[in-house]
């Protein structure tokens, strides 16, 4: 009996049409809906391909052989496309390639999908204004998308993905071209998003540990680790060549383990705060 309250992969494998080896190899995992799932791994790990599967791009648009299953809530991107597509937003690795190219202004670009969804004109205006404010694009609304910087383009791509209020949001390295402040603002915004299942690929390990409920590590197409950031970061295999958040590095150097579980070291500021308080009061 399928569980409609989770995102689950069941022996999911995928091989691109002209490749011999699978890019994703037998992934099985499940997470309750409306969580933030961070995906990390080095290149050729399969992160982008997994995003494409979750977004339904693979195998609908880019073909190949998919086996096993992928289910998000009561729908599958494989079996229930295009209904699934209607409730899913995604941001590709390269923001330039996902804009319509038809809009003269940032406002029109954000409105593009709403028009396609048949939303009323007055509602469109209001939604565009709200989303632009959330992603700090208000000043750019009347500019051409071509005039934006890389970081602004990424924010525009995110705006176009969320303006339709999707239940599922797939973000493939959405902050790669943002400056540090832009990146911090993005992750702070991400924490405020509710009622949405978010899958985010990123190299920002510190921010992911602060934000994600669940971390998955992919290595050469295999899911080698999954769990809370605390569990995953405390049980790394050096062969995966994954970095750790700075909070964890500091806690290891200073020998500040968690008070409640002294075999584990903190990975978030709040965890660090708690264990430092305990360590200090014991001295």
């Amino acid at each position, binding site marked *: 009996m399928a569980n409609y309250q989770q995102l689950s992969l069941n022996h999911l494998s995928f091989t691109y049409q002209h490749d011999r080896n699978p890019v994703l190899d037998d992934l099985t995992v499940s997470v309750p809906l409306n969580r933030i799932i961070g995906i990390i*791994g*080095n*290149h*050729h790990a399969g992160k982008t391909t997994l995003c494409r599967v979750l977004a339904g791009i693979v195998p609908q648009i880019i073909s190949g052989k998919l086996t096993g299953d992928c289910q998000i809530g009561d729908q599958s991107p494989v079996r229930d496309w295009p209904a699934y597509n209607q409730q899913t937003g995604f941001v590709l*690795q390269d923001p330039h390639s996902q804009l319509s190219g038809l809009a003269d202004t940032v406002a029109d670009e954000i409105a593009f999908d709403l028009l396609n969804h048949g939303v009323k004109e007055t509602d469109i205006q209001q939604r565009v204004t709200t989303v632009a404010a959330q992603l700090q694009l208000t000043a750019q609304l009347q500019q051409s998308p071509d005039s934006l*910087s*890389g*970081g602004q383009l990424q924010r525009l791509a995110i705006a176009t993905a969320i303006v339709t209020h999707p239940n599922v949001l797939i973000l493939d*390295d959405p902050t*790669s*071209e943002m*400056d*540090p*402040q832009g990146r*911090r603002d993005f992750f702070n915004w991400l924490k405020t998003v509710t009622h949405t299942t978010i899958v985010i690929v990123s*190299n920002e390990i*510190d921010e992911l540990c602060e934000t994600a409920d669940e971390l998955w590590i992919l290595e050469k197409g295999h899911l080698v680790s999954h769990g809370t950031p605390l569990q995953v970061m405390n049980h790394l295999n050096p062969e995966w*060549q*994954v*970095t750790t958040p*700075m*909070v964890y*590095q*500091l806690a290891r*150097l*200073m020998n500040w383990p968690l008070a409640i579980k002294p075999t584990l070291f903190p990975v978030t*500021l709040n965890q*660090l*705060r708690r264990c*430092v308080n305990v360590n200090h009061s014991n001295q």
Partner: protein
Amino acid sequence: MSIIQISDLRYQYPASDFQLSINQLSIADSLVAIVGQNGAGKSTLFKLLTGLIQPQKGEININQQNLARLTPEERLRTIGIIFQDPSSQLFNATVEKEVAWSLSQLESDAELIQATIKKALASVGLTKLKDQNPFDLSLPEKKLLTIATVLAINPQIYLFDEPMMSLDWPSQRLVTVLIQHLAQTGHQVIAITHDMDWVAATFPKMVALAAGNVVFEGVPTNFFSCPEPVKKAGLLPPRIMTIAQEVFNDHQVYLTPQDYAEKHLVH
């Protein structure tokens, strides 16, 4: 070791209010980071340093030679740039040909060219991919390839525009080691970066730009010790400082977790 001297430099793009304006800047260290917000003028400075654009006023001297008077060949041997977006720099049919291209503008000895290509590809770990099309490579691999094309020329000065961007962790470590090695072997490395943790851990000297002007030049410890110029340049301090501030209300300068531990652990 090279010395870059910039004096009275002005550059303005046509149809833009932005002006890069540097009165005096001397870059004489082997490892220098250039930091600043998007639009601060960092990439414009790099374009001026490579002669891709010409200043409207002022000049750039490298080892007391005016950059504008160097021949194309001299310029290639003096200064090499690794762009932020590797695709803008790649156009050959194979990885090997890509590395050979610029080199063959300077060298005619086929054996020397082959040996140099081999060495350059090995130092970025791309030997196995030498027959592939550059456009089939992953983004980190493309970036490493653009580094190899410049390594093959072996200029005195290397300009890296956001080298850490879109690299995975093993490639970041590789590039950091490579940059340190270049600096230790008599080259000058200047890198534009947004990554303050990387600056703090790797660069002894830095220059900060804001709105087309130099707002700081010196050692990172001094830059991060006063919040004003950091804020003015639109930057954040290294994460270890944020941790110390937020968890311990400690406002001292720390560059890395190791730096913090050294200052606090009683040996």
